[in-house]
């Protein structure tokens, strides 16, 4: 349900970087550790984008795996279930390498072909 707020945050970020240009695609990176439902995001995005340069834009996303690293034994692994413990040495002092992302990675904007002097 917080996908409504998240969609608004995505539109705000995209609008800021579009600098007035029409946006066709917004690409997101969503980490597996985030509790975000992409379908739900897309649904709200369509509403929130109305009357902005993002109106009609497509929302795309890449899911980023949850990769962990154990500083003690240098083991690296992908988290399959939410057990935050090193499978090799059982240490609980582990580092999240990826999986927490909730980023607007890029936007595709319409641009006039550059015909000016250069």
């Amino acid at each position: 349900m917080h996908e409504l707020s998240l969609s608004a945050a995505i539109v705000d970020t995209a609008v800021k970087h579009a600098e007035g240009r029409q946006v066709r695609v917004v690409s997101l990176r969503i980490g597996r550790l985030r509790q975000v439902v992409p379908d739900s995001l897309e649904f709200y995005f369509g509403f929130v984008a109305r009357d902005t340069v993002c109106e009609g834009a497509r929302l795309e996303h890449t899911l980023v795996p949850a990769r962990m690293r154990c500083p003690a034994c240098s083991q690296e692994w992908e988290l399959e279930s939410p057990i935050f413990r090193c499978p090799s040495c059982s240490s609980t002092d582990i580092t999240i390498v990826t999986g927490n992302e909730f980023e607007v990675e890029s936007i595709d904007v319409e641009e006039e072909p550059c015909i000016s002097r250069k």
Partner: protein
Amino acid sequence: MHLKKVRVVKDALDANTTIAQANRADFDRAGVTVVNLMSAPGAGKTTLLERALAGLDSIAVGVLEGDVQGSFDADRLARLHIPVTQINTDPGFGGECHLDANMVRSAIPSLPLEEIDLLIIENVGNLVCPAEFKVGEDARVMVSSVTEGEDKPLKYPLMFRTCELVLVNKIDLLPHLDFDLEAFLRNVEAVNPEAQHMLVSARTGEGIEAWREWLIRTVARRGVPA
């Protein structure tokens, strides 16, 4: 007309984080410690607050109540003669399921920050969304009641990972339930090895003193170098 790809690579919640930092700076200036209290609906947040705050004289506490609708919880807490401010998240376009930094920001002018040492923000009852939004708190605490089942840490890992204290409430009901307390605590530890927990019953008062002392300690640790 052609399409151009613009690299952005920006956390979509940056705006919320920035506002949360501004809230935090305001709280710091006033010397107020802030606890963000979260749980599923009906886990017992308000009753645990009533119990803990009723006997808490050594520090001055204020409460910011977040609810979708109504002021039922705020009315209950106001009877304790502590300052309570209500935020309703239902300004028309569907009630939000969580508090975000901006909602808290809008409430700051009506908070008596100069008069209190501790502000408890009682978030909207929900195990998913509140975990995603920083509001400017020093500490996050959640209530999980034994009627919710021992699998909850594994089902809502983000919430359990984000809290430093888990209050396990309604333990007076344990004899009547199939709830496996050991399995629950194992699941909490799997998801968040750093989390502390306390077994409490808002109904019988068991564990309330420990929860009260935790609040006092959390206020005291402000200003102590980490």
